């Protein structure tokens, strides 16, 4: 603002210079008085307020110039000399005075040297009577200035982009370094199935070379081996899966077996759209072998425990039957108790062995036809006494599907039913009811264990099947247990390609059920081709 209202006194003998400069300053909003000689200038300086005197001393009277400059100095005003420079100007304004040589520089520079700051375009008032051509050149000039500005800013941006790219590249190479050195094999295919990433461990495991494989799809590759084929099969199998994992047995050259755990997960982008498939390969051979040893050990322990148990169970049963002579009522009660406790112990041993078979692929594989009603009846026996102690009515209802046969892994199903009955009895308060039932449903057989106990909050219905999960509740905490029961049930039932259904609400009891394929002895003859006697025997009975 100050600049615009600055008052200039312009003294130049040449009328064209005078006019041009006056117009330039006026366009910037300055007040300008232009005169042709020093005498007129002197009277103007004395008559009105002047901030800056612009003087071309050429063609002026030398003493007039001196008088003027002295007065300007006394008044403390600025002075700009035109058309003289260096040594020629020194005697007039001293060293460092502002001198502008002629021909005068471009208007922008000129204005700067005259001490006029460029006003914002919009704010610049258009002086009346200014020529159209002049406005154009000013705008052009402004544009040029703007361009220069932008150019400089662009250069700055490019520089910071370079920095960014540099640090991005560093970050990327650091990440690739990590991926390359990671202990697991990593394979990533994009949304259309092309391999995008294959780290050295995956190269080794899959027998592929990244420089060949990257860019191709898994099906394009000619290579074939157990692991690669398994990945292909799994990726093709289910388009709707999100994550799946599986341990694959791989034969190594030296006839040694390796176990590779593969985890395949779908990757989605921030919009939730499918972005590719990430395949992680982990060599679990050592863990697998340790696991086998553990299972073997548990199996031996179980064997050692079951042998004496067979004696206790058999002898007590035979005594209870009176085979060893009649018993009085008290003796009979004690013998019954010995027998029931031996069944409980047997269940505990089964659970112990189950621990060893947690991740085993064998569960649910050893199929045989058997009477499901008989099995649930037997499976409930070990809990009759515990139930009686709590005055719980434990009922086995086999009336709905008498004589029903299923084809399943008998000992696994028995463990599952026992775990459900054990839980039902555990979580049902004194005087409650537990019912085990077998029913026909959708051409299959449904096994259901229901109680009227504490129930389960629906928000836990999914989590209760997780390994070691127990509902944290002050009322139930004292029940103890391993938190594995329902996990076993789920694994066993799923191994039979079925699922566990839970219906429960807090305080309203719980019902767990699952379906099993029923076994038709007459029609399924080819499945029993290896045991014709068994089939015949079953039919005869």
């Amino acid at each position, binding site marked *: 603002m100050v600049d615009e209202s600055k008052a200039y006194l312009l003294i130049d003998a040449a009328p064209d210079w005078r006019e041009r400069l006056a117009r330039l300053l006026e366009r910037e909003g300055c007040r300008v008085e232009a005169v042709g000689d020093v005498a007129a200038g002197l009277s103007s300086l004395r008559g009105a307020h002047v901030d800056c005197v612009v003087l071309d001393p050429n063609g002026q009277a030398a003493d007039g110039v001196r008088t003027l400059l002295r007065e300007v100095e006394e008044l403390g005003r600025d002075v700009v000399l035109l058309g003289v420079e260096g040594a020629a100007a020194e005697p007039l304004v001293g060293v460092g005075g502002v001198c502008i040589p002629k021909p005068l520089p471009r208007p922008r520079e000129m204005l700067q040297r005259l001490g006029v700051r460029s006003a914002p375009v919009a704010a610049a008032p258009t002086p009346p009577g200014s020529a159209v051509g002049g406005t154009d050149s000013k705008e052009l000039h402004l544009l040029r200035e703007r361009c220069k500005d932008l150019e400089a800013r662009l250069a700055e941006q490019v520089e910071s982009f370079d920095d960014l790219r540099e640090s991005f590249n560093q970050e990327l190479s650091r990440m690739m370094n990590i991926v390359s050195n990671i202990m697991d094999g990593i394979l990533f295919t994009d949304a259309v199935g092309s391999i995008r990433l294959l780290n050295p461990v995956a190269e080794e495991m899959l027998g592929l070379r990244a420089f060949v494989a990257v860019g191709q799809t898994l099906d394009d590759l000619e290579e074939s081996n157990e692991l690669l084929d398994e990945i292909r099969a799994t990726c093709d199998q289910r388009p709707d899966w999100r994550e799946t994992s599986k341990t694959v047995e791989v034969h190594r050259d030296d006839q040694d077996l390796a176990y590779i755990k593969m985890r395949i997960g779908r990757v989605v982008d921030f919009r939730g759209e499918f972005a590719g498939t990430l395949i992680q390969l982990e060599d679990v051979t050592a863990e697998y072998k340790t696991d086998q040893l553990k299972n073997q050990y548990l*199996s*031996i322990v*179980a*064997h050692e425990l*079951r*042998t*004496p*148990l*067979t*004696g206790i*169970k*058999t*002898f007590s*049963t*035979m005594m209870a*039957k009176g*085979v060893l002579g009649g018993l009085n009522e008290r003796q009979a009660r004690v013998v019954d108790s010995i027998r029931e406790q*031996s069944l409980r112990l*047997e269940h505990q041993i089964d659970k112990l*062995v189950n621990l060893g*078979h947690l991740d*085993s692929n*064998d569960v649910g*594989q*050893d*199929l*045989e036809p058997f009477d499901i009603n008989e099995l649930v009846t*037997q499976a409930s026996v070990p809990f009759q006494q515990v139930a009686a102690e709590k005055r719980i009515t434990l009922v086995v209802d086999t009336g709905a599907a008498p004589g029903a046969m299923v084809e399943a892994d*008998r*000992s696994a199903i028995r463990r599952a039913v026992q775990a459900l009955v054990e839980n039902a009895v555990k979580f049902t308060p004194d005087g409650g009811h537990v019912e085990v039932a077998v029913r026909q449903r959708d051409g299959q057989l449904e096994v259901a264990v229901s109680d009227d106990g504490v129930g389960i909050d629906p928000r836990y219905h999914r989590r209760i099947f997780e390994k070691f999960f127990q509902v944290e509740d002050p009322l139930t905490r004292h029940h103890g247990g391993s938190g594995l029961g329902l996990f076993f049930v789920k694994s066993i039932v799923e191994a039979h390609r079925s699922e566990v259904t839970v219906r429960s609400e807090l305080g309203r009891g719980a019902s767990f059920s699952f379906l099993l394929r029923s076994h038709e002895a007459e029609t399924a003859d080819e499945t029993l081709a*290896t*045991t014709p*006697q*068994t089939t*015949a*025997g079953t039919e005869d*009975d």
Partner: protein
Amino acid sequence: MERTVLIIEDEKLIIVSTQMVLEAAGFRVEAADNGEEGIEKARKLRPDLVLLDIMMPGIDGWETLTRLKRDPDTSGIPVIIFTAREHARGHQKSTEMGAADYFRKPFEPDELIELVEKHIGQRV
């Protein structure tokens, strides 16, 4: 006609308890405490059924089963595998190898009798 069951089992306790159950049900019971002796007795006594343990010192139950099935003199005798250990796909494996059935210890005495009744005399 008295029906004979041969138990091949290294645990004395199992022999005694099984014997008690089967004798109470009217069977005659013979026992051998290892595979070799079992095969010998099977050949000599021609039992109506064999109860065979898997884990035994010397030749195990699987090997004993193989030899019994290979010998024409004993191949017709139904064999029930009788085990206290978990065997991967044990039921399938034993039927594939020619056993009549597969049974886990500790057993339920009534079930054992039922099973023996079912297979006995079902000559292969």
